[in-house]
């Protein structure tokens, strides 16, 4: 054997080697690194959310699993499974009790007694919800991208099916993306005991049958890359829903002039609702991997509810793998035209009336923080903690003995979410 490990006599690289290196380099890059992306075939986002409202109201545990598979060339399948377990009480819409109040459950089988000074709750509330959503997106020709989605959710008294489709196109060297979408929804409302007669005396608990509603919507969205570090997004939405919009468990108290509760009626809402909203977001990349995001949403519906949501979020990268994301959100809304905390005995009963606090005027700040850490393999563990507080605005004062009470059932809630994102 002739062993010559130190044959490096040529001082300059010969022409032949240069030529081979060049062609070899071109060859090595020809197939790209695209095949490496196949290594993690499935991206799984899993999270458990724990939600708890103050004063023994709703409490929920919600595990979510979001699975994404890239079939290559941007053909992406998404599947999402959600399970909700809710317990606790939800305000019935009735005013604060000044003496013991008894509420009959929708099934007619149980009664809830409310202590004086407390908001009446439908406290036998217990439900489970399952939801499955699927989505598919892919390029269409050279310029377009299409996205299709469908969803189904079911709980004891409510079933919903949704479908949506969107088309997007890039302009200005991919710096502007315009997205056009349509969506449809069909809901089946099947309350325990049946649908209550609108504005009937809740004490009689007259219920029968079930109801449905359907909705259609459209969306126009713009995403614009303003500079290397600045992204602007704007969305315009319009949707309308027709059919049964009333909450079959909510009542309105009828209060006499001295403040005693004379009785209660099942609420009644219009069977049409149209909503339009605009959303703008600015996201700026700062030093390292930090990012600041500011967004604002204005929503208006034809029930008279106008809402504003403003949010500021700061993504602070502690190191390559760890981040902290504090955020603060402000929400406020005006009341629906037919919202009223109570009805006065002797006065005419309007066609539409609801004392549901979600239709009243209120403001609600949220403060929260999210902490995340990515491990060597790119899997991310995150924990998010939010505090939410809802306070009524311009709430009508009750007559007589109700005068000292705040009739709006304000609420405080905490949310804790633990998430784990990994590849398979």
């Amino acid at each position, binding site marked *: *054997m*002739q*062993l*010559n*490990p*130190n*044959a*490096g*006599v*040529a*001082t300059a*690289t*010969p022409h*032949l*080697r240069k*030529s*081979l*290196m060049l*062609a*070899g380099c*071109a*060859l*090595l*890059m*020809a*197939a*790209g*690194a695209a*095949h*490496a992306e*196949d*290594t993690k075939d499935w991206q799984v986002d899993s999270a458990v959310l724990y939600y708890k409202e103050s004063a023994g109201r709703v409490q929920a545990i919600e595990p979510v699993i979001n699975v994404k598979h890239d079939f290559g060339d941007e053909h992406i399948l998404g599947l999402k499974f959600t399970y909700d377990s809710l317990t606790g009480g939800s305000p019935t819409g009735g005013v604060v009790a000044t003496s013991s109040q008894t509420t009959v459950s929708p099934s007619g089988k149980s009664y809830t007694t409310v202590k004086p000074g407390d908001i009446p709750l439908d406290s036998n509330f217990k439900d489970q919800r399952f939801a499955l959503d699927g989505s598919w997106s892919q390029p269409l020709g050279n310029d377009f991208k299409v996205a299709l989605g469908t969803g189904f959710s079911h709980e004891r008294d409510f079933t919903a099916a949704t479908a949506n489709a969107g088309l997007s196109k890039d302009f200005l060297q991919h710096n502007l993306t315009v997205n056009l979408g349509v969506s449809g929804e069909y809901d089946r409302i099947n309350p325990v005991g049946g649908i209550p007669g609108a504005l009937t005396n809740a004490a009689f608990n007259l219920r029968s049958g079930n109801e449905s509603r359907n909705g259609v919507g459209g969306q126009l969205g713009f995403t614009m890359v303003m500079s290397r570090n600045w992204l602007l997004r704007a969305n315009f939405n319009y949707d309308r829903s027709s059919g049964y919009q009333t909450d079959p468990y909510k009542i309105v108290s009828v209060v006499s002039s001295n403040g005693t509760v004379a009785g209660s009626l099942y609420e009644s809402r219009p069977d049409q609702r149209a909503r339009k909203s605009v959303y703008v977001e600015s996201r700026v990349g700062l030093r390292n991997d930090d990012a600041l995001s500011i967004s604002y949403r204005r929503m208006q519906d034809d029930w008279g509810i106008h809402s504003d949501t403003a949010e500021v979020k700061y993504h602070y990268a502690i190191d390559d793998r760890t981040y902290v994301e504090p955020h603060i959100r402000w929400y406020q809304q005006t009341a629906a035209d037919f919202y009223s905390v109570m009805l006065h005995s002797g006065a005419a009963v309007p066609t539409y009336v609801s004392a549901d606090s979600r239709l009243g005027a209120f403001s609600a700040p949220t403060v929260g923080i999210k902490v995340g850490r990515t491990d*060597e*393999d*790119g899997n991310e563990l995150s924990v998010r903690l939010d505090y939410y507080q809802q306070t009524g605005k311009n709430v009508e004062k009750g007559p007589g003995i109700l005068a000292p009470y705040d009739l709006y059932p304000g609420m405080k809630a905490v949310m804790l979410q633990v998430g784990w994102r990994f590849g398979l």
Partner: protein
Amino acid sequence: MSAATRVEEGVRVERRPGGLHAACFSAMASPCEVLVDTTSAELALEVGSRAAREAWRIEQRYSRYQPESVLSALNASNGKPVEMDAETTALLEYARRCHVESDGWFDVTSGVLRRAWRFDGSHNIPAAERVSKLLSLVGFQKLILDPPFLSVPTGMELDLGGIGKEYAVDRALMLATIGTTAPVLVNFGGDLACHGVPQSGPWQIGVERPGAHASAAMVLELASSGGLATSGDTHRYLLQEGRRLGHILNPRTGWPVEGGPASVTVAAGSCLEAGTLATFALLKGAGAEAFLREQGVRYWLL
């Protein structure tokens, strides 16, 4: 003794001395291993699986033996132009460059000559007419290469044997090192490439020298990154009037190249470069060593 720690989809991970893990699999009719300087079997499996998937992908595309391969489709195209993808175009461009730089000695169309030659150590020398008949089907210049189109005349055949495995080694290393800073060495049946130096010291490669005594097995050290490849096979030869004819064929005459080494091992910047230079050297016959010295590479002849 090494114990298999994890097995997944044809990739087996073993612990190796020096704080290394090896991911083993087989591809291209060779035992393959990917050495990763890590104490994590999971990381070794991930890195090794990336390399394995790339090896299998390339094998599936460019094997002559798989009827579904891109190469088989080109060989069965009967002279009709076929549109190639970017990777195949680049492979053909590399083959063309080799053909030009070797003055026509390195030729990916010369594989058809093997129909006449069986290098089984016998005296089975083919008839001259049979060889010259096959010679009409050899010649890279007879291909019509108009990227991305290629026409392979009827009867001619492409065989990427001289560059395919070496290319796969470099690709596998490139993909294996994505997403890890751990030093990695990819070894497909003796053709190898590495990136980075392990904490325990430079990569030590044991190379068996077929035909030589076991004690002559070399232990090579590889620098921080580069490739090593061997061309030639001491077991494949024919005997003619007491002369030994090696299996490297001259595409111009259709006869074995004479007077050269039986096997050439070269260390260069990449496995592909090393393999190409080793094959060039074998084609030079008696001029092999002079050629290698001129290239300024480390080499070992047998």
